């Protein structure tokens, strides 16, 4: 597991030194949320859509962060050294996913806070527990799928457009699940807490399925031939 932690630490060191997520992706995601509010132009509507908007903004931002995560590997062919040193590519996969998770988790925390401030969402009592669980499980799923498909398109021409095409359909169940469960946590009338927890179950299954798939598929995907 040392390899995974080394990889995660390295990615976070790079983020810490460049502050790419902090300085560019977070403002971008906030901007998306502001623009949604402007476009919907109705406070009750925005309040109802708040959960979905948080996760949609997160989804778009994930594409940026994933691309960045693999650009640093391919820019100077560092991934060759990385894969050469790592006997088990699955550990590299989990390391990169862990770093992605940390960055996305911070982003979602900012966006949920923004939803409270901008959209007037309130979370109280036992709903906080649901919200935290949803954020952790959905962000894990995002990080795992993002890393997996980031590896698919790493070092390819036209990867900026290919990544969303491949990853977004796969992320659709996660978007639905995270949005519904967050809606429950936000105290929406259309969905109760029990259903919110049911969605967390789906998110959990999703994370396990793609965690397993990613650790198995990362090795064949990263064998470059040119």
């Amino acid at each position, binding site marked *: 597991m*040392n390899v995974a932690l*080394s*990889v995660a630490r390295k990615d976070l060191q790079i983020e810490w*030194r460049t502050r790419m997520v902090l300085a560019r992706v977070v403002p971008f995601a906030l901007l998306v949320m502001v623009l949604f509010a402007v476009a919907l132009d109705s406070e009750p509507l925005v309040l109802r859509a708040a959960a979905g908007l948080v996760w949609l903004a997160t989804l778009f931002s994930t594409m940026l962060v994933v691309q960045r995560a693999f650009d640093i590997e391919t820019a*100077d062919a*560092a991934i060759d050294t990385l894969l*050469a*040193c790592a006997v088990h590519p699955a550990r590299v996969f989990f390391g990169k996913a862990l770093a992605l998770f940390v960055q996305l988790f911070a982003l979602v925390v900012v966006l949920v806070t923004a939803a409270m401030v901008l959209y007037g969402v309130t979370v109280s009592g036992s709903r906080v527990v649901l919200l935290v669980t949803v954020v952790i499980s959905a962000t894990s799923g995002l990080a795992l799928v993002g890393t997996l498909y980031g590896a698919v398109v790493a070092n390819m021409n036209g990867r900026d457009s290919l990544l969303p095409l491949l990853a977004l359909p796969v992320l659709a169940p996660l978007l639905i699940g995270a949005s519904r469960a967050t809606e429950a946590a936000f105290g929406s009338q259309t969905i109760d807490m029990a259903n919110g927890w049911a969605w967390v179950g789906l998110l959990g299954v999703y994370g396990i399925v793609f965690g397993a798939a990613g650790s198995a598929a990362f090795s064949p995907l990263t064998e470059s031939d040119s």
Partner: protein
Amino acid sequence: MTNSVASDTTIHLSNAVVALGGFPALAGVTFGVGRGELVALRGANGTGKSTLLRLCAGLVPLTRGVAVVAGVDLLVNRVAVRPHVGLLGHRNGLYGDLTAKQNVQFVAGLVGATASDVSSALERLGIDQRVASTQASLLSAGQRRRTALAALIVRRAQLWLLDEPHAGLDAAARRELDVILRDATASGATVLYTTHEIDQVVGTPRTITLDGGCVASDVAATIGSAP
């Protein structure tokens, strides 16, 4: 795995062809390198030197022929060779956003080398405190090359593959590099590096020249000195 290859052979190539997008970068290469050998690879640009190194490192697939490196049959599983091989390519494989020292530390963390391994490797390549704590993307080409070499030392690979390791280095660093490569072979590692003749490691006992993706000559002597 093939049993026909002796266990003290690190590289065994027989009529190896590597086609990159239909172009045969290697058009049938045959030679062997024993454990602990120091071999220079010469040839003009585009004769297949870099591809040969990348083949041995398991980075490009073998199209035809036989290639067994460090006991691994590259036709069967070229990924399995990577842990045994340290490759310094045209590109240094550094993270530009990390400092020189952080880069070496990262590699050390992957292979389980200690902090003292890191500092001794940095010291050997003359990377002082100031350079070590500078972001890699801000270093000069020579300093980046030295950092990559330090990372290679830390890896302690069985087979060292270096693509023009002397390029960009000053005279002092070249001399140090020569010592490092000879030390590596003395401790049992095998070294294969590409070069232009003027960069020849002093005392390289064997030189293979490539031309047109094939071996043009294979001489057991240093170019420029008596055989």
